[in-house]
């Protein structure tokens, strides 16, 4: 299995094919519904974002609180489709890679293709296992959003699958249409 460390280079992205399993290490940011809404509002108002989005990786998740002996609680992917309304905007602002679960709409796939991005799927419901991949969790922004705040996670060998590659090939849409 291919091991990749963030930040993603264009060369790394171009060499990934839909359906490929990878192990991801390095820094990624968490953000889900409320944080996406707020980031897009800030972009609309021309305000500086609380974290540099250019070239970054966003993980759609709202983790459980960390028990006393742990770095973070369970931290699996949430449904990416809810972020479809915001994703093309963020991709145009420089976001490179998204991690979540489930298929994306055609606007997101087009944006990925145009900007040489990438959409990776984590196993939905595997939050406990994924929490063990997190070596560090740091609150970055929007503390008032609680579980929906933005965290910078340092992950090691996070298991993921290429769900939309930079050519726009989709793992999940293909299956829904044609069956196996």
């Amino acid at each position, binding site marked *: 299995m291919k091991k990749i460390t963030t930040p993603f280079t264009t060369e790394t992205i171009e060499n990934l094919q839909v*359906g490929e*399993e990878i192990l991801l290490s390095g820094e990624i940011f968490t953000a889900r519904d409320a944080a996406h809404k707020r980031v897009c509002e800030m972009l609309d108002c021309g305000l500086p974002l609380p974290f540099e989005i250019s070239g970054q990786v966003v993980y759609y*998740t*709202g*983790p*459980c*609180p*960390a*028990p006393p002996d*742990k770095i973070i*609680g*369970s*931290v*699996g992917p*949430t*449904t990416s*489709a809810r972020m479809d309304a915001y994703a093309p905007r963020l991709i145009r602002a420089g976001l490179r890679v998204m991690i979540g*679960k*489930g*298929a994306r709409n055609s606007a997101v796939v087009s944006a990925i293709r145009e900007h040489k991005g990438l959409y990776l*799927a984590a*196993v*939905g*419901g*595997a*939050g*406990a*296992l994924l*929490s*063990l991949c997190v070596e560090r969790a740091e609150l970055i922004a929007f503390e008032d959003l*609680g*579980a929906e705040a933005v965290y910078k996670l340092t992950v090691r060998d996070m*298991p993921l*699958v290429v769900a939309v590659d930079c050519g726009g090939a989709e*793992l*999940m849409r293909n*299956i*829904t249409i*044609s*069956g*196996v």
Partner: protein
Amino acid sequence: MSEIRVIEAAKITDAVAELCISANISIGVDIKQALSNAHDFETAPLAKSVLKTLLENADIAERERLPICQDTGMVVVFAWLGTRVHVSGNITAAINEGVRRGYRDGYFRNSVVADPQSRINTGDNSPAVIHYDFVEGDSVKLAVMPKGFGSENMSAVRMLKLSDGISGAENFVVETVQSAGANPCPPVIVGVGIGGTLEKAALLSKQALLREIGEVHSDPFWAEFEARLLARINALGIGPSGFGGHTTALAVRVLAYPTHIAGLPVAVNIGCHATRHKTVIL
């Protein structure tokens, strides 16, 4: 007249708190077995890999006392009250206190907002959605089901026409699972409520998720309906995590109820790969 048994409301709180924790960290034995069988059956590398991950996740959750999933859900409680039981105190308040305590002590995510419009988090995962029913006897049975919204959002109710027939109901279930795709964290368990009224069908579809995998429907017609649906759903090819494969659902569970001469309500409640629930009898 037979004697009335008194149960303190505090006992209900203790039980609910404990059930919230165990349901969130410990996957059902029947479901784990079904995932394991699916792992052995699948041949596609991605499908096998996802099922292996889900089985490992279940072990890690139990060992580390971490919730199986970060979406620790909105809590649904079924309470069956014996006709010869008196609960001293406010049972609804007692259940909600149990939820608060379970979610605090378990370090679970608070996912409930006080109002659908203002969307301010209640901060303690209360209130639960509680369904009461009465049964003969002097005990109280409680089933706690933390329901995540990846799967809940993919659920649906439709008031079918009689001319749609049972095959129409079958098609509606398949379409609902198909359009859900990877979002409800397959392999799913599909709860189906048929009959009653709009809300009765929806309630039955949720309650249907409580039946253990492997326990065949007592009515041969519905047993066959479930088997036929399971085969059609697994032919969709969505597979574990939506990455493709033969295991889109682990089971289809139907509950039927008398309905109106003019109606055929059908509800589909999708449960995720873990379909978390735990039951206790007091």
